[in-house]
């Protein structure tokens, strides 16, 4: 199904064009090599390859053989890979014997190495296994069968605005992860779309790749790529560019506007999960900030969480009913579904997962990795524009040792940007660790994550932090509570990159005052809910734009319990 098509069609473009005939030939070659190494129908193979032609040919050949493929990100440390292999137990492992290497490459030139592993044939009928950063244990094993993948490719063909046969996708999204894998590679092969990967992932590299061919072109990427491209002052005219689509978190309005203005093309959004692929889209930007569920899927909201109709559990191993039950997958995203239009709004995560350049990282995994180190007596990991870790160290422990060990245990994209060594981690009145990033920012010195000169000295002089007034939870006085909420709102606005100059108690949140757009209002409401343990109804969310800062704080004060929501 994927390889079918005219011989001369260019279906891929990495270092050079790859025709269907050529791809079929390469896949047949890999088929022989993998079969020769012992892979058969019902067998299992793990691919640990960077985006490359080798990745594509080994993946397709393995499926052609009828084997189950596990995909491991090439950036995982050997510690993480070993842990994954021990859990997955594949019969063969394919890695890079030689790789072209280098920074900021969209793809690599790889000569693969196939090794036998003491594993076993596939235990299930799934076609592809992927790992997600997990909150319990090192990772969650996500499995999709051929039907699920085929369904998703079909879903793409039914969505208006998706590139058609004869067109081109320039993908900045890794083909090893669901967006680039299904939305780019599998859909592209099926629909006869030329999938091109830029050699260099710089703004210049991406734009020159787009300019290199006349085919109607869609860019596929993640929000970071929009920021990068939107920052180019005078981009070249690209008449072949029809639009860009990003997956992952929503792009900030000001960045989005600048992109659309500079490139004169639509910016679309895709919402999905590794477990099921694309769930909803807004490819023309008409539904923003909401998305329209893809044909063939149902989305509902239960207790503030979005759920997606998925017939079979996508997880291997012990079944957790809080993840999937009775045909419904829990997304762990807070959101709403409009009863009339069906449009879905995603309001934020309900768990500790964050997106780092489009890659999902569970902060709890990072926290457990740190807390498990002998040098570390306590750790809190938060997301404050980047992953930030606050740790207490055992007597005599060196932060450089912690950094080194972290580097062997966690792939670079999961590692904390900075390790803040403090004398004491702040706690609430009930003894729980404070995870409020604004509060944590105020305490203690920090050590830069790489072995910089100042790092060790800062670590050794770290004293017990003085908890600021915001940490003390025993405020029962209404005026103090009002002030606490007001300050939190101002800090939140600053954190969301809104200026608080000129915002006073009488400023409204909407267009007449602070001018927060609707997604920002929703985000503010969610932050207040999380921090103060309150819950706003849908009507209240909509009324927020017309409220002044004071009115809003007054509505929250009586609803806050005396102990923080932690």
């Amino acid at each position: 199904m994927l390889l079918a098509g005219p011989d001369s069609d260019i279906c891929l473009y990495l270092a050079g064009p790859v025709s269907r005939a050529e791809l079929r030939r390469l896949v047949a070659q890999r088929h022989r090599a993998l079969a020769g190494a012992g892979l058969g129908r019902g067998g299992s193979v793990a691919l640990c390859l960077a985006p490359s032609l080798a990745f594509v040919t080994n993946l397709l050949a393995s499926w052609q053989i009828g084997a189950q493929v596990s995909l491991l990100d090439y950036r995982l440390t050997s510690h993480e890979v070993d842990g994954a292999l021990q859990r997955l137990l594949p019969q063969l492992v394919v890695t890079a014997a030689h790789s072209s290497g280098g920074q900021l490459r969209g793809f690599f030139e790889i000569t693969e190495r196939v090794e036998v592993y003491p594993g076993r044939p596939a235990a299930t009928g799934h076609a592809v296994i992927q790992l997600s950063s997990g909150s319990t244990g090192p990772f969650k094993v996500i499995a999709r069968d051929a039907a699920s993948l085929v369904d998703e490719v079909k879903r793409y063909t039914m969505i208006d605005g998706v590139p058609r046969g004869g067109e081109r996708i320039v993908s900045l999204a890794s083909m090893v992860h669901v967006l680039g894998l299904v939305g780019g590679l599998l859909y592209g092969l099926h629909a006869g779309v030329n999938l091109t990967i830029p050699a260099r992932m710089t703004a210049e590299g991406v734009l020159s790749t787009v300019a290199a061919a006349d085919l109607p072109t869609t860019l596929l990427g993640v929000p970071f790529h929009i920021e990068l491209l939107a920052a180019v002052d005078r981009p070249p005219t690209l008449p072949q560019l029809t639009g860009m689509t990003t997956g992952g978190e929503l792009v900030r309005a000001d960045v989005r506007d600048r992109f659309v203005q500079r490139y004169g093309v639509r910016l679309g959004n895709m919402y999905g999960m590794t477990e099921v692929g694309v769930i909803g889209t807004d490819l023309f930007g008409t539904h923003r900030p909401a998305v329209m569920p893809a044909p063939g899927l149902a989305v509902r909201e239960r207790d503030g969480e979005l759920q997606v109709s998925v017939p079979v559990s996508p997880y291997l191993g012990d079944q957790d009913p809080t993840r999937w039950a009775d045909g419904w997958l829990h997304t762990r995203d807070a959101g709403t579904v409009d009863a009339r239009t069906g449009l879905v709004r995603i309001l934020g995560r309900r768990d500790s997962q964050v997106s780092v350049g489009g890659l999902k990282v569970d902060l709890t995994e990072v926290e457990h990795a740190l807390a498990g180190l002998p040098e570390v007596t306590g750790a809190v990991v938060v997301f404050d524009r980047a992953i930030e870790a606050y740790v207490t160290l055992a007597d005599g422990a060196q932060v450089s040792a912690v950094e080194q060990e972290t580097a062997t245990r966690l792939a670079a994209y999961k590692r904390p940007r900075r390790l803040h060594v403090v004398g004491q981690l702040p706690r609430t009145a009930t003894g729980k660790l404070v995870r409020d990033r604004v509060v944590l920012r105020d305490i203690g010195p920090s050590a830069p994550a790489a072995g910089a000169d100042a790092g060790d000295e800062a670590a050794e002089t770290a004293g017990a932090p003085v908890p600021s007034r915001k940490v003390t939870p025993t405020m029962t006085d209404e005026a103090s509570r009002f002030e606490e909420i007001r300050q939190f709102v101002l800090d939140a606005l600053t954190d969301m990159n809104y200026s608080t100059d000129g915002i006073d108690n009488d400023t409204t949140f909407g267009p007449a005052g602070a001018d927060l757009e609707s997604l920002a209002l929703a985000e503010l409401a969610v932050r207040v809910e999380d921090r103060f343990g309150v819950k706003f109804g849908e009507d209240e969310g909509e009324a927020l734009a017309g409220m002044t800062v004071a009115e809003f704080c007054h509505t929250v004060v009586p609803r806050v319990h005396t102990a923080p929501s932690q």
Partner: protein
Amino acid sequence: MLATYGDRDPGQVPEAIDSMELAWLLHQIAQRYGDIDLDDDLLARMSTVTGVVEVLADLKGPVAG
């Protein structure tokens, strides 16, 4: 320059540079100094702030004359 990505205070930028920051940095350099020839060696040197400063000094050398 790195501080402009994510609107950070220059004191807050850590020494190590990840790939997103590197891409952003290269963009800023191109805006300020024009396009520079990129190769893997050059990019490898730019994995820390110190490395970037050295690379920039080399780049400006011939221009400053």
